[in-house]
Protein backbone atom coordinates (compact mmCIF):
# COMPACT_ATOMS: atom_id res chain seq x y z
CA UNK A 1 0.00 0.00 0.00
CA UNK A 2 1.30 3.45 -0.84
CA UNK A 3 0.59 6.55 1.11
CA UNK A 4 1.27 9.50 -1.07
CA UNK A 5 2.19 12.56 0.88
CA UNK A 6 -0.14 15.46 0.32
CA UNK A 7 2.97 17.58 0.20
CA UNK A 8 5.53 15.74 -1.88
CA UNK A 9 4.25 16.73 -5.26
CA UNK A 10 7.67 16.66 -6.85
CA UNK A 11 7.28 14.63 -10.01
CA UNK A 12 10.95 13.78 -10.11
CA UNK A 13 10.37 11.59 -7.09
CA UNK A 14 7.67 9.55 -8.77
CA UNK A 15 9.21 6.45 -10.16
CA UNK A 16 7.48 4.07 -12.56
CA UNK A 17 7.30 1.62 -9.69
CA UNK A 18 5.05 3.90 -7.69
CA UNK A 19 2.56 4.11 -10.52
CA UNK A 20 2.51 0.36 -10.73
CA UNK A 21 -0.49 -1.12 -8.88
CA UNK A 22 1.82 -3.77 -7.40
CA UNK A 23 4.73 -1.90 -5.87
CA UNK A 24 8.10 -3.62 -5.61
CA UNK A 25 8.53 -5.90 -2.62
CA UNK A 26 11.67 -4.13 -1.49
CA UNK A 27 11.05 -0.67 -0.15
CA UNK A 28 14.55 0.29 0.91
CA UNK A 29 17.73 -1.19 -0.53
CA UNK A 30 21.22 -0.72 0.89
CA UNK A 31 24.03 -1.27 -1.60
CA UNK A 32 27.55 -1.69 -0.22
CA UNK A 33 27.18 1.13 2.30
CA UNK A 34 30.42 2.23 3.90
CA UNK A 35 31.02 4.89 6.48
CA UNK A 36 34.46 6.09 7.44
CA UNK A 37 34.61 8.94 9.94
CA UNK A 38 37.29 11.60 9.76
CA UNK A 39 40.17 10.12 11.71
CA UNK A 40 39.80 6.78 9.98
CA UNK A 41 37.24 4.99 12.16
CA UNK A 42 35.22 2.72 9.91
CA UNK A 43 31.66 2.50 11.20
CA UNK A 44 30.23 0.42 8.34
CA UNK A 45 31.92 -2.10 6.04
CA UNK A 46 30.13 -2.60 2.70
CA UNK A 47 26.72 -3.31 4.18
CA UNK A 48 24.10 -4.55 1.71
CA UNK A 49 20.54 -5.63 2.49
CA UNK A 50 16.90 -4.96 1.62
CA UNK A 51 13.92 -3.90 3.67
CA UNK A 52 10.52 -5.27 2.68
CA UNK A 53 7.57 -3.00 2.12
CA UNK A 54 4.98 -2.78 4.86
CA UNK A 55 6.85 -4.74 7.50
CA UNK A 56 8.54 -3.84 10.76
CA UNK A 57 12.27 -4.21 10.28
CA UNK A 58 14.58 -4.18 13.29
CA UNK A 59 18.29 -3.42 13.29
CA UNK A 60 19.97 -4.52 16.48
CA UNK A 61 23.53 -4.19 17.71
CA UNK A 62 25.59 -3.10 20.65
CA UNK A 63 26.43 0.59 20.91
CA UNK A 64 28.99 1.47 18.27
CA UNK A 65 27.83 -1.30 15.94
CA UNK A 66 26.88 1.29 13.31
CA UNK A 67 23.11 0.94 13.50
CA UNK A 68 22.47 4.63 13.99
CA UNK A 69 24.65 5.50 11.00
CA UNK A 70 22.77 2.94 8.94
CA UNK A 71 19.36 4.33 9.91
CA UNK A 72 20.46 7.90 9.19
CA UNK A 73 21.60 6.92 5.71
CA UNK A 74 17.95 6.32 4.74
CA UNK A 75 17.08 10.02 5.00
CA UNK A 76 20.66 11.28 4.56
CA UNK A 77 20.94 12.78 8.03
CA UNK A 78 24.36 11.15 7.74
CA UNK A 79 25.89 10.61 4.35
CA UNK A 80 27.62 7.27 3.75
CA UNK A 81 31.21 7.45 2.50
CA UNK A 82 30.44 4.99 -0.27
CA UNK A 83 27.55 2.92 -1.55
CA UNK A 84 23.93 3.77 -2.30
CA UNK A 85 20.64 3.75 -0.45
CA UNK A 86 17.59 3.31 -2.68
CA UNK A 87 14.13 4.23 -1.46
CA UNK A 88 11.57 3.12 -4.03
CA UNK A 89 14.48 2.81 -6.47
CA UNK A 90 15.52 6.43 -5.94
CA UNK A 91 19.18 6.93 -5.04
CA UNK A 92 18.72 9.08 -1.94
CA UNK A 93 22.33 10.25 -1.87
CA UNK A 94 22.12 11.74 -5.35
CA UNK A 95 19.18 14.05 -4.58
CA UNK A 96 19.65 17.82 -4.55
CA UNK A 97 18.35 19.72 -1.51
CA UNK A 98 14.77 20.41 -2.73
CA UNK A 99 14.28 16.78 -3.76
CA UNK A 100 15.84 15.51 -0.55
CA UNK A 101 13.48 17.75 1.44
CA UNK A 102 10.53 16.32 -0.51
CA UNK A 103 11.73 12.77 0.11
CA UNK A 104 12.23 13.43 3.83
CA UNK A 105 8.58 14.45 4.01
CA UNK A 106 7.72 10.90 2.94
CA UNK A 107 9.91 9.45 5.72
CA UNK A 108 8.84 10.09 9.31
CA UNK A 109 11.35 9.74 12.14
CA UNK A 110 11.15 9.44 15.92
CA UNK A 111 14.02 9.73 18.37
CA UNK A 112 15.25 8.34 21.66
CA UNK A 113 15.11 11.77 23.28
CA UNK A 114 11.95 12.79 21.41
CA UNK A 115 13.47 16.05 20.09
CA UNK A 116 10.33 18.12 20.58
CA UNK A 117 10.58 21.89 20.40
CA UNK A 118 10.34 23.22 23.95
CA UNK A 119 9.06 26.62 22.84
CA UNK A 120 6.05 25.18 21.04
CA UNK A 121 2.91 23.49 22.28
CA UNK A 122 2.03 19.91 21.37
CA UNK A 123 -0.28 21.18 18.63
CA UNK A 124 2.41 23.49 17.22
CA UNK A 125 5.04 20.76 17.38
CA UNK A 126 2.90 18.33 15.41
CA UNK A 127 1.71 20.95 12.91
CA UNK A 128 5.03 22.65 12.23
CA UNK A 129 6.27 20.25 9.51
CA UNK A 130 3.07 20.97 7.56
CA UNK A 131 3.28 24.70 8.23
CA UNK A 132 6.80 24.98 6.84
CA UNK A 133 5.69 22.94 3.83
CA UNK A 134 3.10 25.62 3.10
CA UNK A 135 -0.05 23.69 3.98
CA UNK A 136 -2.99 26.05 4.75
CA UNK A 137 -3.71 26.51 8.47
CA UNK A 138 -7.22 24.93 8.56
CA UNK A 139 -5.86 21.79 6.92
CA UNK A 140 -2.95 21.69 9.38
CA UNK A 141 -5.40 22.01 12.25
CA UNK A 142 -7.54 19.14 11.02
CA UNK A 143 -4.58 16.89 10.42
CA UNK A 144 -3.06 17.65 13.84
CA UNK A 145 -6.36 16.87 15.54
CA UNK A 146 -6.64 13.52 13.72
CA UNK A 147 -3.13 12.55 14.69
CA UNK A 148 -3.47 13.56 18.33
CA UNK A 149 -6.58 11.39 18.40
CA UNK A 150 -4.62 8.53 16.88
CA UNK A 151 -1.89 8.71 19.54
CA UNK A 152 -4.38 9.37 22.33
CA UNK A 153 -3.29 12.87 23.28
CA UNK A 154 -6.21 14.98 22.07
CA UNK A 155 -6.53 16.56 25.54
CA UNK A 156 -2.90 17.71 25.62
CA UNK A 157 -2.95 19.78 22.42
CA UNK A 158 -2.19 23.12 24.08
CA UNK A 159 0.33 21.90 26.62
CA UNK A 160 4.09 22.47 26.34
CA UNK A 161 6.24 19.32 26.05
CA UNK A 162 7.94 19.95 29.41
CA UNK A 163 4.63 19.15 31.10
CA UNK A 164 4.41 15.69 29.50
CA UNK A 165 5.75 12.32 30.64
CA UNK A 166 8.32 10.46 28.52
CA UNK A 167 5.69 8.22 26.97
CA UNK A 168 3.47 11.17 26.13
CA UNK A 169 6.42 12.99 24.57
CA UNK A 170 7.12 9.98 22.37
CA UNK A 171 3.45 9.91 21.35
CA UNK A 172 3.78 13.53 20.26
CA UNK A 173 6.94 12.53 18.40
CA UNK A 174 5.01 9.77 16.63
CA UNK A 175 2.16 12.12 15.74
CA UNK A 176 4.67 14.61 14.35
CA UNK A 177 6.44 11.90 12.36
CA UNK A 178 3.14 10.86 10.77
CA UNK A 179 1.96 14.35 9.90
CA UNK A 180 3.10 14.14 6.27
CA UNK A 181 1.44 10.74 5.77
CA UNK A 182 4.81 9.08 5.31
CA UNK A 183 5.43 5.71 3.68
CA UNK A 184 8.33 4.95 5.98
CA UNK A 185 8.76 5.48 9.71
CA UNK A 186 12.28 5.45 11.17
CA UNK A 187 12.59 4.78 14.90
CA UNK A 188 15.91 5.71 16.51
CA UNK A 189 16.00 3.84 19.85
CA UNK A 190 12.47 5.13 20.32
CA UNK A 191 11.85 3.31 23.59
CA UNK A 192 15.33 3.28 25.12
CA UNK A 193 14.59 6.24 27.38
CA UNK A 194 11.25 4.87 28.58
CA UNK A 195 10.26 2.60 31.47
CA UNK A 196 9.13 -0.97 30.64
CA UNK A 197 5.41 -0.24 30.88
CA UNK A 198 5.60 2.84 28.68
CA UNK A 199 7.87 0.97 26.27
CA UNK A 200 5.15 -1.61 25.93
CA UNK A 201 2.45 0.94 25.12
CA UNK A 202 4.66 2.75 22.59
CA UNK A 203 5.51 -0.55 20.87
CA UNK A 204 1.80 -1.40 20.74
CA UNK A 205 1.13 1.96 19.16
CA UNK A 206 3.87 1.43 16.57
CA UNK A 207 2.43 -1.98 15.69
CA UNK A 208 -1.06 -0.47 15.40
CA UNK A 209 0.20 2.25 13.11
CA UNK A 210 2.04 -0.27 10.98
CA UNK A 211 -1.12 -2.34 10.64
CA UNK A 212 -3.50 0.60 10.13
CA UNK A 213 -1.44 2.73 7.79
CA UNK A 214 0.60 0.02 6.12
CA UNK A 215 3.81 1.96 6.33
CA UNK A 216 7.25 0.38 6.47
CA UNK A 217 8.77 0.71 9.93
CA UNK A 218 12.55 0.57 10.41
CA UNK A 219 13.74 0.62 13.99
CA UNK A 220 17.10 0.39 15.66
CA UNK A 221 17.55 -0.84 19.20
CA UNK A 222 19.99 -2.63 21.47
CA UNK A 223 17.16 -4.47 23.18
CA UNK A 224 16.15 -7.88 21.84
CA UNK A 225 12.86 -7.60 23.73
CA UNK A 226 11.84 -4.77 21.39
CA UNK A 227 12.68 -6.90 18.37
CA UNK A 228 10.69 -9.81 19.78
CA UNK A 229 7.72 -7.62 20.61
CA UNK A 230 7.07 -6.06 17.23
CA UNK A 231 9.54 -6.88 14.46
CA UNK A 232 8.96 -9.15 11.48
CA UNK A 233 12.54 -9.20 10.33
CA UNK A 234 15.77 -8.48 12.14
CA UNK A 235 19.27 -7.60 11.09
CA UNK A 236 22.09 -8.07 13.57
CA UNK A 237 24.97 -5.65 13.21
CA UNK A 238 28.34 -5.93 14.90
CA UNK A 239 31.43 -3.84 14.30
CA UNK A 240 29.91 -2.33 11.18
CA UNK A 241 29.21 -5.71 9.57
CA UNK A 242 26.05 -7.77 9.19
CA UNK A 243 26.15 -10.80 11.49
CA UNK A 244 22.87 -12.24 10.31
CA UNK A 245 19.48 -11.32 9.00
CA UNK A 246 16.19 -13.13 8.91
CA UNK A 247 12.72 -13.66 10.30
CA UNK A 248 12.68 -12.83 13.98
CA UNK A 249 11.66 -16.33 15.08
CA UNK A 250 14.51 -17.87 13.11
CA UNK A 251 17.14 -15.55 14.51
CA UNK A 252 15.79 -16.09 18.02
CA UNK A 253 15.43 -19.81 17.58
CA UNK A 254 18.79 -20.59 15.97
CA UNK A 255 21.14 -17.61 16.23
CA UNK A 256 24.20 -18.00 14.02
CA UNK A 257 26.61 -15.32 15.24
CA UNK A 258 28.32 -14.79 18.58
CA UNK A 259 27.09 -11.21 18.65
CA UNK A 260 23.51 -12.44 18.23
CA UNK A 261 23.90 -14.98 21.01
CA UNK A 262 25.35 -12.30 23.27
CA UNK A 263 22.40 -10.03 22.56
CA UNK A 264 19.95 -12.87 23.18
CA UNK A 265 21.54 -13.97 26.45
CA UNK A 266 19.50 -11.70 28.73
CA UNK A 267 16.31 -13.20 27.28
CA UNK A 268 17.32 -16.82 27.67
CA UNK A 269 17.02 -19.05 30.69
CA UNK A 270 20.52 -20.01 31.66
CA UNK A 271 21.50 -22.46 34.35
CA UNK A 272 20.50 -21.04 37.76
CA UNK A 273 23.51 -20.32 39.98
CA UNK A 274 22.52 -22.73 42.78
CA UNK A 275 22.32 -25.62 40.33
CA UNK A 276 25.54 -24.65 38.59
CA UNK A 277 27.37 -24.85 41.92
CA UNK A 278 26.20 -28.42 42.51
CA UNK A 279 26.71 -29.73 39.01
CA UNK A 280 28.94 -32.81 38.60
CA UNK A 281 30.56 -33.77 35.29
CA UNK A 282 29.92 -37.52 35.79
CA UNK A 283 26.83 -39.35 37.06
CA UNK A 284 27.03 -40.21 40.81
CA UNK A 285 27.55 -43.89 41.75
CA UNK A 286 24.02 -44.34 43.00
CA UNK A 287 20.88 -42.52 42.01
CA UNK A 288 21.02 -38.84 41.24
CA UNK A 289 19.57 -36.78 38.42
CA UNK A 290 20.81 -35.64 35.06
CA UNK A 291 20.20 -31.98 34.24
CA UNK A 292 19.10 -31.58 30.65
CA UNK A 293 18.72 -28.42 28.62
CA UNK A 294 16.12 -28.57 25.89
CA UNK A 295 16.19 -25.96 23.19
CA UNK A 296 13.17 -25.37 20.99
CA UNK A 297 14.08 -23.46 17.86
CA UNK A 298 10.55 -23.15 16.54
CA UNK A 299 11.51 -25.27 13.55
CA UNK A 300 10.71 -28.74 14.85
CA UNK A 301 7.71 -27.76 16.94
CA UNK A 302 6.25 -24.95 14.81
CA UNK A 303 2.83 -24.56 16.40
CA UNK A 304 3.68 -25.50 19.96
CA UNK A 305 5.95 -27.77 21.97
CA UNK A 306 4.44 -31.20 22.40
CA UNK A 307 4.35 -32.11 26.08
CA UNK A 308 4.29 -35.78 25.16
CA UNK A 309 7.66 -35.42 23.47
CA UNK A 310 9.08 -33.81 26.63
CA UNK A 311 7.60 -36.55 28.80
CA UNK A 312 9.00 -39.17 26.46
CA UNK A 313 12.41 -38.33 27.91
CA UNK A 314 11.25 -39.89 31.15
CA UNK A 315 7.79 -40.00 32.69
CA UNK A 316 9.12 -38.68 36.01
CA UNK A 317 11.17 -35.81 34.53
CA UNK A 318 10.99 -32.60 36.54
CA UNK A 319 10.72 -29.15 35.01
CA UNK A 320 13.35 -26.96 36.71
CA UNK A 321 13.52 -23.70 34.88
CA UNK A 322 12.83 -22.11 31.50
CA UNK A 323 10.07 -20.90 29.26
CA UNK A 324 8.48 -21.00 25.84
CA UNK A 325 7.74 -17.85 23.85
CA UNK A 326 5.52 -17.60 20.84
CA UNK A 327 7.23 -15.52 18.18
CA UNK A 328 5.47 -15.03 14.86
CA UNK A 329 3.48 -18.18 15.58
CA UNK A 330 6.52 -20.29 16.39
CA UNK A 331 6.93 -21.75 19.86
CA UNK A 332 10.49 -21.50 21.03
CA UNK A 333 12.54 -21.27 24.16
CA UNK A 334 14.53 -23.34 26.61
CA UNK A 335 13.58 -25.79 29.34
CA UNK A 336 15.80 -27.25 32.05
CA UNK A 337 14.78 -30.75 33.12
CA UNK A 338 15.94 -33.14 35.80
CA UNK A 339 15.69 -36.79 34.81
CA UNK A 340 16.63 -39.69 37.14
CA UNK A 341 19.95 -41.07 35.90
CA UNK A 342 18.55 -44.61 35.79
CA UNK A 343 15.75 -43.55 33.44
CA UNK A 344 17.87 -41.34 31.28
CA UNK A 345 19.98 -43.60 29.08
CA UNK A 346 17.09 -44.87 27.04
CA UNK A 347 15.48 -41.47 26.80
CA UNK A 348 18.26 -39.30 25.39
CA UNK A 349 18.15 -39.08 21.66
CA UNK A 350 14.78 -40.74 21.39
CA UNK A 351 12.74 -37.83 20.16
CA UNK A 352 15.10 -34.88 20.19
CA UNK A 353 17.79 -34.01 17.72
CA UNK A 354 21.20 -33.61 19.41
CA UNK A 355 21.36 -29.79 19.07
CA UNK A 356 18.06 -29.44 20.84
CA UNK A 357 19.06 -31.49 23.85
CA UNK A 358 22.18 -31.15 25.93
CA UNK A 359 23.20 -32.91 29.13
CA UNK A 360 24.56 -30.13 31.28
CA UNK A 361 25.71 -32.41 34.11
CA UNK A 362 24.50 -34.36 37.07
CA UNK A 363 23.45 -33.72 40.60
CA UNK A 364 23.63 -36.15 43.45
CA UNK A 365 20.37 -37.09 45.14
CA UNK A 366 17.52 -34.71 44.72
CA UNK A 367 17.44 -31.52 42.71
Amino acid at each position, binding site marked *: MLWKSAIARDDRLRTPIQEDPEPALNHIVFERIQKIYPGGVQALHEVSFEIRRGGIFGIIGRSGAGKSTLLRAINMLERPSAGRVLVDDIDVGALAEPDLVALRRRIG*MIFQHFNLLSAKTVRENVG*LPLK*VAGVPAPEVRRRVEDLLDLVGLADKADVY*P*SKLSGGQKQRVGIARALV*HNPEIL*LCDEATSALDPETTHSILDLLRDINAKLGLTVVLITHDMAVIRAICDEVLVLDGGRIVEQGEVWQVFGSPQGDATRALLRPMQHGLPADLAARLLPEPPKHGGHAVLALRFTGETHPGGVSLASVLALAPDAKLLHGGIDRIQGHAQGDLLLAVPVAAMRSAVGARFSPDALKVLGYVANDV
Partner: protein
Amino acid sequence: MSPTMSERYLRAFTETMTMVSVSVAIAIAFGLIFAVTLVATAPDGLYPKPKFNKAVSVVVNVFRAIPFIILLVALLPFTRFLVGTTLGTWAAVVPLSIHLIAFYTRIAQVSLNEVDHGLIEAAHAMGFRRWHIVRHVLLPEALPGIVGGMTVCVIAMINSSAMAGAVGAGGLGDLAIRYGYERYETQVLFEIIVILVVLVTTVQFGGEWLSRRVNHRR
Protein backbone atom coordinates in the same frame (compact mmCIF):
# COMPACT_ATOMS: atom_id res chain seq x y z
CA MET B 1 16.29 71.52 45.32
CA SER B 2 16.00 74.37 42.84
CA PRO B 3 13.54 73.99 39.96
CA THR B 4 16.46 74.17 37.57
CA MET B 5 18.06 71.26 39.37
CA SER B 6 15.01 68.99 39.00
CA GLU B 7 14.89 70.01 35.38
CA ARG B 8 18.49 68.90 35.08
CA TYR B 9 17.61 65.56 36.62
CA LEU B 10 14.75 65.04 34.20
CA ARG B 11 16.90 66.04 31.25
CA ALA B 12 19.75 63.77 32.33
CA PHE B 13 17.34 60.91 32.86
CA THR B 14 15.83 61.41 29.40
CA GLU B 15 19.30 61.52 27.84
CA THR B 16 20.32 58.31 29.55
CA MET B 17 17.11 56.57 28.50
CA THR B 18 17.54 57.78 24.91
CA MET B 19 21.12 56.52 24.72
CA VAL B 20 20.26 53.20 26.34
CA SER B 21 17.09 52.44 24.39
CA VAL B 22 18.37 53.49 20.97
CA SER B 23 21.71 51.73 21.27
CA VAL B 24 20.16 48.60 22.79
CA ALA B 25 17.62 48.44 19.96
CA ILE B 26 20.35 48.81 17.34
CA ALA B 27 22.64 46.34 19.13
CA ILE B 28 19.97 43.66 19.48
CA ALA B 29 19.00 43.90 15.83
CA PHE B 30 22.55 43.76 14.50
CA GLY B 31 23.86 41.49 17.26
CA LEU B 32 21.20 38.88 16.44
CA ILE B 33 22.03 39.08 12.76
CA PHE B 34 25.73 38.61 13.48
CA ALA B 35 25.08 35.82 15.99
CA VAL B 36 22.85 33.89 13.57
CA THR B 37 25.45 34.46 10.84
CA LEU B 38 28.22 33.12 13.08
CA VAL B 39 26.22 30.06 14.15
CA ALA B 40 24.94 29.29 10.66
CA THR B 41 28.30 29.63 8.90
CA ALA B 42 30.25 27.66 11.52
CA PRO B 43 32.05 24.59 10.12
CA ASP B 44 29.29 22.32 11.47
CA GLY B 45 26.51 24.85 10.88
CA LEU B 46 23.63 24.99 8.43
CA TYR B 47 25.57 26.95 5.81
CA PRO B 48 29.21 26.05 6.54
CA LYS B 49 31.57 28.85 5.45
CA PRO B 50 34.61 28.41 7.70
CA LYS B 51 36.72 31.27 6.28
CA PHE B 52 33.92 33.82 6.31
CA ASN B 53 32.99 32.65 9.79
CA LYS B 54 36.53 33.20 11.04
CA ALA B 55 36.65 36.68 9.51
CA VAL B 56 33.40 37.79 11.17
CA SER B 57 34.56 36.31 14.45
CA VAL B 58 37.84 38.26 14.31
CA VAL B 59 35.99 41.53 13.64
CA VAL B 60 33.70 40.90 16.61
CA ASN B 61 36.72 40.12 18.78
CA VAL B 62 38.41 43.39 17.78
CA PHE B 63 35.44 45.39 19.01
CA ARG B 64 35.10 43.23 22.11
CA ALA B 65 38.75 43.90 22.96
CA ILE B 66 38.66 47.69 22.87
CA PRO B 67 37.59 49.33 26.16
CA PHE B 68 34.54 51.50 25.64
CA ILE B 69 36.18 54.82 26.54
CA ILE B 70 38.89 54.19 23.94
CA LEU B 71 36.40 53.01 21.32
CA LEU B 72 34.48 56.24 21.94
CA VAL B 73 37.50 58.32 20.95
CA ALA B 74 38.73 56.03 18.19
CA LEU B 75 35.35 56.12 16.46
CA LEU B 76 35.08 59.94 16.44
CA PRO B 77 35.68 60.29 12.66
CA PHE B 78 33.15 57.55 11.94
CA THR B 79 30.64 59.16 14.29
CA ARG B 80 31.08 62.53 12.57
CA PHE B 81 30.53 60.85 9.21
CA LEU B 82 27.38 59.12 10.42
CA VAL B 83 25.55 61.75 12.50
CA GLY B 84 27.42 64.90 11.44
CA THR B 85 28.72 65.75 14.91
CA THR B 86 30.92 64.28 17.59
CA LEU B 87 29.04 65.93 20.44
CA GLY B 88 25.78 65.20 22.19
CA THR B 89 23.50 62.31 22.91
CA TRP B 90 23.19 61.10 19.33
CA ALA B 91 26.93 61.16 18.83
CA ALA B 92 27.26 58.88 21.85
CA VAL B 93 24.74 56.42 20.43
CA VAL B 94 27.17 55.44 17.65
CA PRO B 95 30.05 54.07 19.78
CA LEU B 96 27.63 52.73 22.39
CA SER B 97 25.79 50.71 19.72
CA ILE B 98 28.94 49.37 18.12
CA HIS B 99 30.39 48.42 21.49
CA LEU B 100 27.14 46.69 22.39
CA ILE B 101 26.67 44.92 19.04
CA ALA B 102 29.91 43.03 19.60
CA PHE B 103 28.93 42.23 23.19
CA TYR B 104 25.41 41.09 22.33
CA THR B 105 26.61 39.04 19.33
CA ARG B 106 28.58 36.82 21.68
CA ILE B 107 25.75 36.52 24.21
CA ALA B 108 23.20 35.56 21.53
CA GLN B 109 25.73 33.22 19.91
CA VAL B 110 26.11 31.26 23.13
CA SER B 111 22.32 30.87 23.43
CA LEU B 112 22.00 29.75 19.81
CA ASN B 113 24.85 27.27 20.19
CA GLU B 114 23.15 25.76 23.21
CA VAL B 115 20.15 24.66 21.13
CA ASP B 116 20.13 20.85 21.25
CA HIS B 117 21.61 19.40 18.09
CA GLY B 118 18.92 16.70 18.17
CA LEU B 119 16.29 19.36 17.45
CA ILE B 120 18.14 20.46 14.34
CA GLU B 121 18.51 16.84 13.25
CA ALA B 122 14.80 16.25 13.81
CA ALA B 123 13.97 19.35 11.77
CA HIS B 124 16.09 18.07 8.88
CA ALA B 125 14.36 14.69 9.16
CA MET B 126 10.94 16.36 8.97
CA GLY B 127 11.83 18.07 5.72
CA PHE B 128 12.58 21.59 6.97
CA ARG B 129 14.55 23.84 4.66
CA ARG B 130 17.58 25.41 6.30
CA TRP B 131 15.98 28.81 6.81
CA HIS B 132 12.98 27.09 8.41
CA ILE B 133 15.42 25.70 10.94
CA VAL B 134 16.76 29.16 11.75
CA ARG B 135 13.28 30.66 11.95
CA HIS B 136 11.37 27.87 13.71
CA VAL B 137 14.00 25.98 15.67
CA LEU B 138 17.15 28.00 16.43
CA LEU B 139 15.60 31.36 17.26
CA PRO B 140 12.54 30.21 19.29
CA GLU B 141 14.55 27.62 21.22
CA ALA B 142 17.27 30.16 22.04
CA LEU B 143 14.73 32.85 22.96
CA PRO B 144 15.03 32.55 26.77
CA GLY B 145 18.79 33.12 26.49
CA ILE B 146 18.35 35.85 23.91
CA VAL B 147 15.93 37.70 26.22
CA GLY B 148 18.14 37.11 29.24
CA GLY B 149 21.04 38.58 27.25
CA MET B 150 19.00 41.70 26.54
CA THR B 151 18.69 42.37 30.26
CA VAL B 152 22.45 42.10 30.65
CA CYS B 153 22.86 44.48 27.71
CA VAL B 154 20.48 47.14 29.01
CA ILE B 155 22.31 47.17 32.33
CA ALA B 156 25.72 47.26 30.66
CA MET B 157 24.45 50.18 28.60
CA ILE B 158 23.26 52.13 31.64
CA ASN B 159 26.85 51.79 32.89
CA SER B 160 28.61 52.62 29.64
CA SER B 161 26.35 55.59 28.96
CA ALA B 162 27.70 57.22 32.09
CA MET B 163 31.06 57.43 30.33
CA ALA B 164 29.44 59.02 27.31
CA GLY B 165 29.43 62.26 29.27
CA ALA B 166 32.98 62.51 27.93
CA VAL B 167 31.61 63.49 24.54
CA GLY B 168 29.05 65.85 26.01
CA ALA B 169 26.25 63.38 25.71
CA GLY B 170 24.81 64.30 29.07
CA GLY B 171 22.93 61.66 30.98
CA LEU B 172 22.81 60.71 34.65
CA GLY B 173 26.47 59.71 34.87
CA ASP B 174 27.54 63.07 33.45
CA LEU B 175 25.34 64.88 35.97
CA ALA B 176 26.85 62.88 38.81
CA ILE B 177 30.40 63.70 37.73
CA ARG B 178 29.84 67.41 37.09
CA TYR B 179 27.76 68.19 40.19
CA GLY B 180 28.60 65.41 42.53
CA TYR B 181 32.33 65.20 41.92
CA GLU B 182 33.54 68.43 40.34
CA ARG B 183 31.29 70.73 42.43
CA TYR B 184 31.42 68.65 45.62
CA GLU B 185 27.61 68.30 45.79
CA THR B 186 27.68 64.92 47.44
CA GLN B 187 23.89 64.84 47.70
CA VAL B 188 23.53 64.94 43.91
CA LEU B 189 26.00 62.08 43.64
CA PHE B 190 24.06 60.11 46.21
CA GLU B 191 20.67 60.78 44.58
CA ILE B 192 21.93 59.71 41.19
CA ILE B 193 23.30 56.51 42.69
CA VAL B 194 19.83 55.80 44.11
CA ILE B 195 18.20 56.52 40.74
CA LEU B 196 20.65 54.20 38.99
CA VAL B 197 20.16 51.42 41.53
CA VAL B 198 16.37 51.64 41.17
CA LEU B 199 16.70 51.70 37.38
CA VAL B 200 19.02 48.69 37.22
CA THR B 201 16.90 46.71 39.69
CA THR B 202 13.74 47.41 37.71
CA VAL B 203 15.40 46.35 34.47
CA GLN B 204 16.79 43.20 36.09
CA PHE B 205 13.45 42.08 37.54
CA GLY B 206 11.57 43.02 34.39
CA GLY B 207 14.07 41.07 32.31
CA GLU B 208 13.87 38.02 34.53
CA TRP B 209 10.08 38.11 34.38
CA LEU B 210 10.11 38.31 30.59
CA SER B 211 12.71 35.55 30.35
CA ARG B 212 10.49 33.28 32.45
CA ARG B 213 7.50 34.09 30.27
CA VAL B 214 9.23 32.88 27.11
CA ASN B 215 10.87 29.84 28.73
CA HIS B 216 8.79 26.67 28.40
CA ARG B 217 11.57 24.27 29.21
CA ARG B 218 10.38 23.80 32.77
